[in-house]
């Protein structure tokens, strides 16, 4: 069918009209209209199409072909006032639900808490508070759990048997990590220029003192494959 249109366009060009002589075949014009409608952020007017396409093109005809081609497909060529656009077929609207999610930046408290869980897991709430230097609100933890980025780990075998938090596979997925072990350490962050400031020379090492051995052991367990 395209061949027929192409022939018609080029033969009419050859015989009747000098400006049409150099115009691309209709199939090519249809491709152009298709690409422009797809990539444009707004519906495109005929005049706009004419302005963009090579001289001698007939966007109206190309649009008609394109509209026919998309009949019954998952998307349609629709006319909106004097402009044209490609739109999802109305019966498939149910597939578009995901497009309506609103993205919001995570709060500073949440991202800091998340970072501490990622780097120190399994970590208790008290430990998170000690590292951040401020208390962690219930809501922050709840939010991160609801997002399925952190979950409860094993209880710590210390008095009170506090619950611990670890990151989830969803977290790894979202941040494009193979495992939490792949997070760069402070030295690596600094080397990569991710730390704006440098510590004064001779400052103490950054590691938390205390029961590091204990923790390291537990971490090793957690990170084993």
């Amino acid at each position: 069918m395209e061949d027929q249109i192409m022939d018609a366009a080029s033969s009419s060009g050859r015989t009747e009209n000098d400006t049409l002589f150099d115009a691309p075949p209709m199939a090519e014009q249809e491709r152009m209209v298709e690409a422009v409608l797809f990539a444009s952020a707004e519906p495109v007017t005929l005049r706009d199409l004419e302005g963009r396409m090579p001289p001698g093109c007939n966007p109206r005809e190309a649009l008609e072909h394109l509209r026919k081609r998309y009949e019954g497909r998952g998307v349609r060529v629709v006319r909106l006032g004097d402009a044209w656009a490609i739109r999802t077929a109305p019966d498939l609207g149910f597939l578009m639900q995901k497009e309506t999610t609103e993205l919001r930046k995570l709060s500073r408290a949440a991202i800091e808490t998340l970072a501490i869980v990622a780097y120190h897991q399994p970590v208790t709430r008290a430990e998170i508070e000690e590292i951040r230097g401020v208390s962690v609100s219930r809501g922050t933890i709840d939010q991160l759990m609801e997002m399925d980025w952190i979950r409860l780990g094993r209880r710590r075998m210390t008095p009170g048997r506090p619950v611990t938090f670890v990151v989830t596979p969803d977290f790894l997925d979202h941040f494009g990590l193979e495992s939490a072990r792949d997070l760069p350490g402070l030295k690596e962050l600094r080397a990569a220029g991710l730390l704006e400031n440098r510590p004064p020379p001779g400052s103490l090492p950054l590691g938390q003192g205390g029961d590091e051995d204990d923790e390291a052991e537990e971490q090793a367990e957690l990170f084993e494959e």
Partner: protein
Amino acid sequence: MAEQTLFSEADTSVEERLAAEALIVDVDGFEGPLDLLLTLSRTQKVDLRKISVLELAKQYLAFVEKAKELRIELAADYLVMAAWLAFLKSRLLLPPDPEEEGPSGEELAAHLAFQLERLQAMRDAAARLMGRDRLGRDFFGRGEEESVARIKTVTYTANLLDLMQAYARIRTKEDFRPFVMDRDSVFTMEEALDRMRHLLGFTGDWTDLISYLPDGWHSDPVKRRSATAATFAASLQLVKEGKAELRQSETFAPIQLRSLDEDT
């Protein structure tokens, strides 16, 4: 001889001399010694696989010499490379010593040639990559994302950089707080002086200075260090005031103190 290849005016065209000068003046424009070597290797006009590493070493050393003459400061890694190439050159020129350990000059030269070829290959690959049809320039994505407002869910998001920067911020906070002495483990000289003035009266005999440390300051090394220093400083003050005398039998022996105050 090496000078000739780069800097002799007799057998080089004006263009080549200009290029050579540009090399020198623009030494900052090179991304390290390997980049410089790669540029120099182009004067050989052969396949990188057939390059003469010996010739290249000579050119590089001549370049470094010239830079020195012109008092251009070369970064340390250029000089390290020069030293290494001088070593390589001698290896390549001298007959192999059967006693000598380690890789031969040829092996070292082959590896350098490999490094140059690999760097060139990566540059070519980078150029081909950047020359490809690219999103947003040659081909395009959907201009108008469709939004069918059915379910409105709020998704909170953050990227890896946010996460890593947040962590770095927390963990380096400590480094940048204003300097404050940790009062918990510091015993001041004033405190030590108070304590010793009080205790000195009871000890007419030579007494080990360590016995003046307050209770609870012996075991923790940080506290012990602070208390010892303060007590020692306080004892010097007492000696200065003529209220006590100090003695030590030999280096590192215990320091002993006794009261001089006859009245108390």
